[in-house]
């Protein structure tokens, strides 16, 4: 018997696992009729999950945590039993700002330190000249985009709360907002950086994979009540998504995947816009190309494992930027939102390489490292933050304290 599962998604490259699970028949083979509904905002995804229109959804990785912490209206208890890949975002700036950044030493190859310090210099010059603050856009306050942009800028001496302005713009409208000079730059998932490149209005300055390699981006958000009432259907869905991830991760399928995502029901943009992120060779917007390792990982390096250390890092950033108070209770809520136990129990029988731990020290692996896993071999890393700082999920409070004391440059 086939079980109907309704999933909401936004038109982004990393809806790939859900789209492939449906279009390549992986869901049907697991007995799941997967209905995909495109939405216009994360708020709509959240609302429709809350009222039961959706059982599961393509979600920003921090979103289920924000829901459970009560930071958003109308939130229902939400769990994340699987991630939908690693990386996939970039930071794009206007051509004008990029020219200034070049003049202040920004490297052309997405290297975050020089680009961030160039921005810091520009921010200071603008303040001296009495010019308005630079305005950057992200897609949502509780998003990897917001946190990685802030992390990068703060580590380069820019206070994201007072030295620049951060606004919210929906992904498909980013390139136009940049083109019409309403914003100076943005951090968004693909293909919405490439959109600015194609339209000739922006230059990609750095990538999520360069700021924090192998970092979390989207998860499968699941209404907790539904998950508890339908454990077998959830297991079947996770298996289908795992098989979709394997398929998406095979370079031989990237052409077909790009064409599939380009369809009118999904991202609805040319396949050519989706290929750069899949290949890792990114058109920069000034005629060049930069090949970024692990730009977007749909499968390799445990890309779909819901690490509790990822959840805890997001929590640490929510505290850092004043979105939630630090407390043992809030930390536990964040940790319990991600459910590697459900991931393991769904995939164990498939002989999938599974990490032995639920959390890891983020940034600890400087090289590709085989890790102890059940059944098959799994290679993780290299991972890590561009500033070399590590995040130990057992020392969250200390990490939060250290970030408070970061010196202003």
């Amino acid at each position, binding site marked *: 018997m086939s079980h109907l599962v309704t999933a909401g998604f936004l038109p982004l490259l990393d809806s790939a696992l859900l789209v492939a699970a449906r279009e390549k028949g992986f869901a049907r083979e697991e007995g799941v009729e997967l209905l995909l509904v495109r939405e216009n905002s994360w708020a709509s995804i959240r609302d429709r999950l809350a009222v039961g229109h959706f059982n599961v959804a393509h979600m920003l990785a921090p979103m289920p945590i924000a829901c459970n912490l009560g930071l958003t209206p109308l939130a229902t208890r939400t769990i994340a039993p699987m991630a939908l890949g690693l990386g996939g975002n970039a930071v794009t700036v206007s051509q004008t700002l990029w020219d200034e950044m070049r003049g202040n030493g920004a490297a052309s190859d997405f290297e975050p330190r020089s680009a961030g310090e160039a921005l810091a210099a520009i921010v200071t010059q603008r303040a001296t000249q009495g010019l308005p603050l630079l305005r950057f856009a992200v897609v949502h*306050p509780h998003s990897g985009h917001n946190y990685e942009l802030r992390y990068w800028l703060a580590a380069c001496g820019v206070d994201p709360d007072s030295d620049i302005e951060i606004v919210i713009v929906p992904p*498909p409208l980013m390139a136009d907002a940049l083109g019409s000079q309403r914003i100076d730059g943005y951090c968004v998932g693909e293909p919405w950086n490439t959109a600015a490149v194609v339209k000739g209005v922006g230059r990609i300055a750095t990538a999520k994979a360069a700021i924090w390699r192998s970092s979390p981006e989207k998860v499968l958000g699941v209404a907790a009540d539904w998950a508890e009432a339908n454990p077998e259907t959830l297991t079947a869905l996770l298996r289908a998504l795992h098989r979709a991830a394997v398929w998406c991760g095979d370079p031989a399928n990237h052409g077909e995947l790009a064409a599939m995502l380009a369809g009118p029901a999904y991202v609805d943009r040319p396949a050519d816009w989706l290929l750069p992120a899949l290949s890792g060779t990114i058109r920069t917007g000034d005629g060049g190309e930069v090949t970024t390792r692990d730009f977007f990982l749909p499968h390799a390096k445990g890309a779909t494992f819901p690490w509790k250390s990822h959840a805890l890092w997001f929590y640490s950033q929510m505290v850092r930027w004043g979105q939630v108070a630090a407390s043992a209770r809030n930390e536990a809520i964040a940790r319990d939102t991600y459910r590697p136990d459900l991931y393991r129990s769904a995939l164990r029988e498939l002989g999938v390489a599974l990490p032995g731990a639920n959390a890891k020290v983020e940034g600890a692996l400087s090289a590709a490292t085989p890790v102890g896993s059940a059944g098959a071999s799994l290679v993780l890393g290299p991972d890590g933050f561009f500033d070399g700082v590590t995040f130990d999920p057992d020392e969250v409070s200390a990490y939060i304290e250290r970030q408070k004391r970061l010196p202003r440059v």
Partner: protein
Amino acid sequence: MKPAPLDVLVIDENRIRAAVIEEGLREAGYTDVTIIHDMAGIAARIATLEPDVIVIDLENPNRDMLENMFQLSRAVKRPIAMFVDRSDTASIEAAVEAGVSAYVVDGLRKERVKPILDMAISRFNAFSRMARELEDARTELESRKLVDRAKGILMKSRGLSEEEAYTLLRKTAMNQNRKISEIAQSLVTAAGLLGPEDAS
């Protein structure tokens, strides 16, 4: 003492629907109603207007931006809580079902806001129904035109009467388990490929 009248802001890029909501609000006695169709500069408008209640369509891609703005006291002087009342699940479901969302100034009593939300829900539903009926009527008209053209082609190319042409179309549709309009469409397309003068 009678409480001050509520300022209601309706944000909807669909002008007809916005007008339908506005009319409903005015009929219900809400006179301080502002309609915004254009999202450009919305933050400044909201800061100036300081509405008590904001009604917005669920499909608006800028809801994430608005919600973020409501949470930043810098942009909006009075903090705005989301939706009417989290405990009122029936209203929330009805609203999401109808495709409308509402944001309310924190501390405003539920009884004061509920009539506005209920009105918005019923008007949104009425608007969807109207749009659906209009779409159905359009489809109906289109298919009638198609059938007329198909009949014309058959009458001309096979020397049939109008009635005979229609009977043939209907019989073919029944045999193939398809709609008459689909058969007519195939015929018109085929005639267009074979001889443009017949399909014109």
